[in-house]
């Protein structure tokens, strides 16, 4: 069997017709992942016992004639910021190199209850902070499409395993673009659902008002299926929404005739032909499918980065205060007093990007600055959200680029953190508004690097977003 091109449908058919068992599939997938992973460093560690145990349970359910679940036997990879009970979860940080969680994230519980087989945990930027996966304490990930380039970040490993074929689908997390940007760099589908759609219980907190869990897949239907499994109210996350979860895969074939799509002019004006040309061809294709395409304006876009980097770092400085050498992190040796121990543990343990963001966040929250920075940023966030709310009065979806450039070379941008922050411009706005957004592959640059198209819709209208992505996917 060709592991690298499996889909959820192929696996379901294979299990039903007894062409292979879940255990055979899991064994083969583990073998393939182990053989291929050294090329990319996308997996931090494989979980053979857990995977084979889950696969055996699926085979037993099938043997008893039971429904084995919508993800029965599907090899899944999980970003290493999502807690897996009894299986090391590092968050890409030296501080948590030996951390073994005492409980599962809700998303993990749901995906294993649905028959999903977790193959292992994937590399990421430390505490999900970065756009290139070069901030991992365990080494960077290489983009499987071009091994001298980054896979994007922070969910670089989760995007890379799906592109490489060492997992069928995966989970990532997105705070300002950390699913969509690596999806576009690696040429796979990546989905950031509505804020509150998926419980974050067991997701290591970065910026609580912005954090999301979402799926990666090689096709739109698989991403929709995985989201359907993990979405829904969870009493353990007070921000998870009561709103019912529809069957996302049901409407995928409904077509897009008559749908109104908005192209925000602020997003297209500075686009280079390298990424602009494939995106333009994708918009033409949607028009040919019967979409009504029009220009719109999201006037506060240029203020989004500043707002985001205040809110995200302020919340991060608070959330990361818990890594103090007492309860779950490693501890700096040779500290005489408790306060020295805190300072040394954190100074030695955090990488440069985490320190930079903790410093900025602490600064903007420090005495006398709250109104000028955090409060102001929250007001600007309201303006960015209002831009979208107004746009959705006249269009059903917004079509936008994902990143100003395709995957760049390893090391190319590490010395310029501000340039890195600015490159998040097209993904941060949707994050601030909390609306569903996804990246779907839409073509290549002249150098053969993948380019993603971003689709954004109203709160809880994932169905329309998936419908547009699925219709476009059929034309490719």
């Amino acid at each position, binding site marked *: 069997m060709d592991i690298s091109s499996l889909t959820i449908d192929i696996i379901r058919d294979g299990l039903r017709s007894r062409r292979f068992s879940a255990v055979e599939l899991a064994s083969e997938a583990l073998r393939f992942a182990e053989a291929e992973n050294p090329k990319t460093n996308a997996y931090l560690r494989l979980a053979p016992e857990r995977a084979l145990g889950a696969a055996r349970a699926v085979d037993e359910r099938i043997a008893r004639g039971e429904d084995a679940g919508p993800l029965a036997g599907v090899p899944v990879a999980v970003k290493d910021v999502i807690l897996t009970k009894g299986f090391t979860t590092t968050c890409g940080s030296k501080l948590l190199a030996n*951390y073994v969680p005492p409980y599962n994230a809700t998303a993990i519980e749901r995906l294993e209850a649905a028959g999903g087989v977790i193959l292992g945990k994937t590399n990421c930027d430390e505490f999900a902070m970065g756009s290139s996966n070069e901030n991992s304490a365990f080494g960077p990930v290489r983009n499987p499409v071009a091994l001298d380039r980054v896979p994007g970040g922070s969910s670089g490993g989760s995007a890379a395993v799906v592109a490489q074929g060492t997992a069928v689908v995966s989970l990532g997390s997105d705070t300002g673009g950390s699913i969509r940007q690596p999806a576009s760099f690696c040429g796979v589908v990546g989905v950031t659902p509505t804020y509150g759609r998926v419980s974050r219980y067991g997701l290591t907190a970065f910026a609580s008002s912005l954090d999301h869990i979402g799926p990666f897949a090689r096709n739109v239907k698989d991403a929709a299926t995985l989201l359907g499994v993990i979405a829904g109210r969870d009493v353990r996350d007070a921000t998870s929404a009561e709103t019912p979860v529809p069957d996302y895969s049901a409407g995928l074939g409904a077509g897009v005739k008559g749908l109104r799509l908005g192209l925000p002019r602020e997003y297209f004006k500075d686009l280079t032909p390298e990424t602009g040309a494939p995106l333009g061809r994708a918009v033409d294709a949607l028009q040919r499918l019967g979409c009504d395409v029009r220009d719109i304006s999201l006037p506060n876009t240029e203020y989004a980065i500043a707002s985001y980097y205040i809110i995200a770092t302020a919340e991060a400085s608070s959330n990361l205060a818990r890594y103090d050498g007492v309860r779950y992190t490693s501890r700096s040796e040779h500290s005489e007093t408790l306060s020295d121990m805190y300072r040394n543990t954190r100074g030695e343990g955090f990488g440069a990007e985490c320190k930079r963001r903790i410093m900025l966040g602490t600064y903007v929250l420090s005495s006398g600055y709250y109104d000028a920075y955090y409060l102001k940023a929250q007001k*600007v966030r*309201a303006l960015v959200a209002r831009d979208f709310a107004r746009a959705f009065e006249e269009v059903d979806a917004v079509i936008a680029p994902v990143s100003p450039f395709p995957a760049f070379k390893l090391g190319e941008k590490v010395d310029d953190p*501000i340039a890195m922050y600015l490159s998040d411009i097209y993904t941060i706005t949707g994050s601030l508004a909390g609306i569903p957004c996804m990246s779907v592959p839409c073509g290549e640059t002249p150098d053969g690097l993948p380019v993603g198209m971003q689709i954004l819709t109203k709160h809880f209208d994932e169905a329309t977003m998936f419908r547009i992505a699925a219709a476009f996917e059929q034309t490719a």
Partner: protein
Amino acid sequence: MKITEDEVRYVAGLANLKLDDAEVAKFRADLDGILEHIDKLNELDVAGVAPMAQVLVEQTAELRADVPAPPLGNDAALANAPMRGPGLFKVPRVIER
């Protein structure tokens, strides 16, 4: 200049981060550049705009039932501690003299 090295050291103290001199210099320059960009927000008049502290309000208004459930348990909570005693986390001495 938006921020001095002394301010960087002060903020590092608030954040419980030990930084060496090279880091202080580097973060001063980085924060300076970022704060410069953030100044862009002063172009906007946000008087009368309500701050957006969370995305959803009505969809998450319901509180869970207040029903006791088993806690994590002492052993599980202590399992990852770098230094533990019987039912407690151990730390270096707290009172400095």
